[in-house]
């Protein structure tokens, strides 16, 4: 099945203009414009507290907007909440599984909440258990599942109503690498099947793997928007050269070394290394050596989304 179907490309699944959300005096989202089209995998990136989850809750039609406008699937969440939610799949940040029901009943009862007839839910549940490889755990209690299995069950649950729009709030946080890759594979298959995905994450590799287009949010605003490649092109350079100079002390701090290479590109001076953003890493290394500097380690790599992210949102810890 093609990713985009002709004629459906321009259909807006989510359309937000000047969208705001405040909790008392605190403004979590300060006016953002978002346009997610059918069949897209769209990402919200940002540090903790950037407003991603608040945005996701508004999109999920469980959080009234504080300002601006928001349309989901062409409907207004304030008045058509149940109708919108009937066509959404939601995979929340924390698993909200029904711990009193077994694995199979979790999917079955949830499916019934959507008004899906019994027979149809039953066959759908079998299909989904297979899809997330939990068929053998059908009768297990939720609390006996591993973290990865719970996540897969949550994903399966979000698909029970064959959603047009799937919302995934930090889907792989807390999972081990194996479980993450299994999940990415499943999400990729859904994307192939034409499901519109909206993902929040602070894992850059995840965003690069899954998202066609993304926005970087910071402090309630959109700091940048585009495809992963566009963002790298716009906000970073093709290559990054990492220079390590061993242990530096007060007499020979990184800052002093940095002064000698500051014309080579945009610099970022970290405690253990200096990053030089320039299109050609080999050229940077050659010049560094010409200037009599002798780094104990050099690494030339492609710019990643992480570089863009850190440039836009800073390296300071956000709590």
């Amino acid at each position: 099945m093609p990713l985009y179907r002709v004629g459906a490309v321009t259909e807006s699944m989510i359309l937000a203009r000047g969208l705001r959300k405040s909790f008392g005096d605190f403004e979590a989202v300060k006016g953002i414009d978002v346009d997610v089209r059918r069949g897209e995998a769209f990402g919200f990136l940002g540090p903790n507290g950037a407003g991603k989850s608040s945005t996701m809750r508004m999109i999920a039609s469980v959080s009234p907007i504080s300002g601006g406008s928001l349309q989901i699937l062409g409907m207004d969440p304030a008045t058509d909440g149940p109708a919108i939610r009937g066509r959404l799949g939601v995979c929340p940040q924390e698993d909200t599984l029904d711990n009193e029901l077994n694995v199979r009943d979790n999917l079955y009862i949830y499916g019934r909440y959507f008004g899906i007839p019994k027979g149809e839910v039953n066959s759908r549940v079998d299909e989904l258990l297979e899809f997330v490889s939990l068929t053998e755990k059908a009768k297990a209690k939720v609390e006996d599942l591993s973290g990865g299995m719970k996540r897969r069950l949550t994903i399966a649950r979000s698909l029970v109503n064959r959603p047009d729009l799937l919302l995934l709030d930090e889907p792989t946080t807390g999972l081990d690498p194996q479980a993450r890759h299994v999940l990415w594979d499943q999400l990729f298959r859904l994307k192939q099947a034409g499901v519109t995905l909206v993902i929040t994450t602070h894992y850059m590799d995840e965003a690069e793997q899954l998202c066609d287009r993304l926005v970087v949010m910071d402090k309630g605003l959109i700091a940048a928007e585009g495809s992963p490649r566009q963002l790298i092109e716009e906000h970073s350079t093709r290559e990054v050269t990492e220079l390590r100079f061993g242990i530096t002390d007060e007499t020979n701090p990184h800052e002093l070394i940095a002064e000698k290479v500051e014309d080579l590109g945009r610099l970022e001076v970290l405690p253990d290394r200096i990053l030089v953003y320039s299109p050609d890493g080999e050229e940077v290394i050659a010049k560094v050596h010409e200037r009599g500097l002798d780094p104990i380690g050099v690494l030339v790599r492609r710019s990643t989304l992480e570089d863009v992210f850190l440039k836009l949102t800073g390296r300071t810890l956000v709590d």
Partner: protein
Amino acid sequence: MATTTHPVHPPLGPARAAWLLVTRSYTVYRQQWKLFLTGFLEPVFFLFSIGIGVGQLVADFEVGGQSIPYAEFVAPGMLAVSAFNGALMDSTYNVFFKLKYDKLYDQMLATPLTTSDIARGEILWGQLRGSSYSVAFLLLMWALGMLHSWTAILALPAALLIGFAFSAVCMAATTWMTSWQDFDKITLLQLPLFLFSATFFPITAYDGWLRWVVEVTPLYRGVVLCRELTLGQVGWESAVSVVYLVVMGLIGLAVVRRRLDTLLLT
């Protein structure tokens, strides 16, 4: 896994949505039916110990011009208490757990269900759980020959009404609770209601304002209603009790819905 084109199911109506929540709870408790046994047995033990045991020390006495053994005075009280206890248990502890720890209602709100559906469904379940104890208790009374009128059959809807009123109000109160310690307050109310709602002795034991206070408490209305029905002494006062319990339940329901909006739709 074709996910693009499919029929969208029409949203559930209020009645079907509420019933679905009851189905969920039923699925949970299907494996834990023993819990129901304890809820049923408690008032039965009181009937046997106080009603029949202590009753042997008490002479028959008159209720509404009818002379009855003490046990038959206590039994309808226990019938009302069954519904009261069952509804209270479910809509306090269980609701608190689902609301604060299990995040069950957040899960439901990711579907077309609304806070109104959740309020109605959970109250209905608490009501049914409470009344199921009453049904069993009524059968016991029938077996012991304690039913004196055809109106006793109306004790069933009366039990449903008591279950509704307490389920709704207790769930409403639970939405304000922040920790398990807060449940001490529930126990603090539950015990005096149980002991002093004309369950073990007639209202005539109280004088003046105290009597008035007891007469406006909800469990008293439930107890006298059940007693009037099992003894066949239905009158205007019965109607007052019915209206009281209906209004109490409806207020509780409205409060629950609004509180869920405040707590969950932030």
